[in-house]
């Protein structure tokens, strides 16, 4: 595996505000990497540094082993980028903007093939390229950048919250396209604060908060850090037996159901106990990143708030 993108101890200050505070990120060739964090965590700043639109105040970033600031234009031949909040030219049509961006990226040398790709994508994303830019909604402006990105092959795709303006149907289209480029061997870095999106698409995930990487790994690895939720119908006669099961957390009996969580690697140990109790209506929900997310932010918010009050 070769590392396509790496950032070590990346820092970025805007005046006295610290946007990035020692961020680490590593993306291997061919992987779809989720870049998760709440709004304001520094996702966009990171992407802008990786793209050479902003310069890091400290730390090191490389793309394909090169410096994204000094070699920006060279690197951009291999990169497709979709900003988080896409602006397009108000007096150009969507089709004109897509053509312009594709031509600037040099993706239109085979005219017929390009036209076919563009038409396919316009159809897939249900996009009318004949309207003026000023009349497009946020979602449609997003589509302009997405179509331009997908219409020209790239080695690395950088998406900044790509689906924030898209409806669920279009989100599926987006997922399908990401699958396609991943199959073709491209590398993808996808920033998002929507967990389901990342869960559906990504092989590996980095979670950042307040400009720092707090967690990084494959989805399976991260799931070890979370707990599986178990629930079944409540039977008052067995309540004592349930509370005695070893290794359970957050026990809650509510509206006729028993719920608790189990460390994900302890699920197998708990199941025989449940079988012995002959529980009814058993559900075992896999751990979601949502929990991981909440735990990370939930835990660290408290001291931060205390600090703010002090």
């Amino acid at each position: 595996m070769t590392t396509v993108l790496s950032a070590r101890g990346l820092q970025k200050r805007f005046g006295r505000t610290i946007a990035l505070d020692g961020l680490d990120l590593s993306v291997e060739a061919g992987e779809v990497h989720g870049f998760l964090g709440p709004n304001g965590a520094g996702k966009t700043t990171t992407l802008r540094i990786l793209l050479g639109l902003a310069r890091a105040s400290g730390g090191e970033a490389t793309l394909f082993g090169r410096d994204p600031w000094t070699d920006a234009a060279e690197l951009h031949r291999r990169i497709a980028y979709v900003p988080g909040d896409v602006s397009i030219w108000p007096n150009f049509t969507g089709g004109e903007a897509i053509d312009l961006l594709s031509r600037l990226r040099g993706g239109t040398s085979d005219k017929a093939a390009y036209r076919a790709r563009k038409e396919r994508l316009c159809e897939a994303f249900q996009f009318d390229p004949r309207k003026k830019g000023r009349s497009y909604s946020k979602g449609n402006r997003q589509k302009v950048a997405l179509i331009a990105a997908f219409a020209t092959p790239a080695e690395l795709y950088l998406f900044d919250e790509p689906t924030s303006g898209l409806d669920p149907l279009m989100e599926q289209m987006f997922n399908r396209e990401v699958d396609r480029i991943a199959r073709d061997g491209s590398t993808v870095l996808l920033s998002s604060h929507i967990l389901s999106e990342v869960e559906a698409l990504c092989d590996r995930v980095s979670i950042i908060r307040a400009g720092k990487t707090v967690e990084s790994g494959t989805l399976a690895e991260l799931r070890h850090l979370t707990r599986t939720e178990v629930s079944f119908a409540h039977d008052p006669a067995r309540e004592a037996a349930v509370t005695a099961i070893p290794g359970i957390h957050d026990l809650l009996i509510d509206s006729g159901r028993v719920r608790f969580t189990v460390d994900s690697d302890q699920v197998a140990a708990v199941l025989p106990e449940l079988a012995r109790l002959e529980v009814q209506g058993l559900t075992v929900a896999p751990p979601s990143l949502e929990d991981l997310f909440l735990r990370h932010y939930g835990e660290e918010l408290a001291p931060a708030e205390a600090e703010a009050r002090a």
Partner: protein
Amino acid sequence: MTPFLVLLRQRIRRDRLQLALWILGTALLAYASISAVYDTYGEEQDRREILGVAIATRTILIFRGTPNGISDGAFAFFLLFAWLALMGGLMSTFLAVRHTRQEEEQGRAESIAATPAGRILPTTATVVHGVLANLVLGLFIALALMANGLEVVGSFVWGAAIAVSGFAFLAFGLFAAQLFRTSRGANGISVAFVLAAYLLRGIGDAAGTPSEDLLHVTPAWPSWLSPMGYGQFTGAYVENDLTPLLIPLAFAAVLVGVVFALQSVRDQGASLLAGRPGRSTAGPVLSSSFGLAWRLNTSILLSWTAGAVATGLLATSLSSVVNQAATDTPAVLETLRRAIGSEASIEEAFVAVFYGIVGVLAACCAVQVGIRARQEEAHGTAELVLGTPIPRIRWLLEYWIVGTIVIVIVLAAAALAGIAGAGAASDPESLVPNVLEAAAAQLPACLVFLGLTLLVFAFLPRATITVGWTAVGLAAILGTFGPILQFPEWAIDLSPFAHSPVPAGGETDWSGGIWMLVIGLAAGAVAVLAMRRRELASGG
């Protein structure tokens, strides 16, 4: 606080610096100009003479006003009123569009409309805000006039005339904002309306009937079509009659009524003049970042070129008229020469003055190209382009090249128009090389402004628009009106336009032009090279 007061306060807060500069600047212009007028035309005889010249040549009246005697106040009113009304008019239309269509276009109006403020109240707040701004402008102008020792009643009549003509332009700006879908479209038509109002009253004055003593003119009917014309009918310091102001006041009231009627029936974001579907593929121009920079600036280029062609045409076609007048009355020739400060022939001097204006137009166009780069950056579209394999340096270099091409085109168009207009002159053969030299002489100053704008863009991106326009505006006032208004020499020398070579009277001194060429090119080169270290500065 009620939603209305919140909206009004937000408008005042947002505009406080801009309007303060505009209002104080205009009042200061009034104050400084009048002091200069007294220095130059302190003697009754001087005033009699210049009024006689103006009435004899007529065209000068287009750029001045209605002669109404030689008293201190009336003479100042003749020289200055239309200019001040022009400033107030532009202030008002920009204000109107800024708080209505621009808000709507950028989607902010939608957030406001979703609050209890609703769709209509923001327009009401804009009307009140604009009315207040014009009242303050009128008051400050009146104060500036009185500070020069002019009498109180006349000064307030003058201030009232400025404010009321401002109301009319405010109403038109609001109306245009209803018609057009974009703030650019609305601003464009509004500026055209203000300039047309200025020109109509100018034609009314020029075509008016002079009195026997050549000290008064009764304007012709075109003045009745212009809010500024009605301002002049007040005859400040002489008749002091406020009743003519009822007409622009009524015009403003009716138009504001129409605006509210339109606003209440149309959808948020919609306009009376809708856009039509465009092409689905890009043309060959949009194949490169240079093509993009060019395409983004073509509409700018067209409008400034139109102005330059008109000015160039006037320069040579009018010069024959002036020549005629000068032959009829030798005193006219003498006075004109003194005003221009050159031993040139009348035609040469006329060409020099008009191509000075062409130079200002070309410089404005170049500044706007630099500003367009900033707009691309602030709007976020530069990010898309710089996300493709376009180096930052090359991106700005292309704007520099487009800016230079644009200057050359504006000047060349004006030169061609001047040559076309020379056909009517008494001596076209001698006028043609004069026109070509006068047009070429403007190039260095224009390059200075292009370089300056790009330099600000590179080092203080958020100040690009303000500094660009302020610099070219101030320099235009100092350079073209400074000598006539007898500003101090050091102030005039601050303006690059004052250093443009003047091809008149045989020998032409090109050294100022060469220096400015060097400075302009150096500034542009530094700006472009600075992009190596420059981050993208979006927003703000």
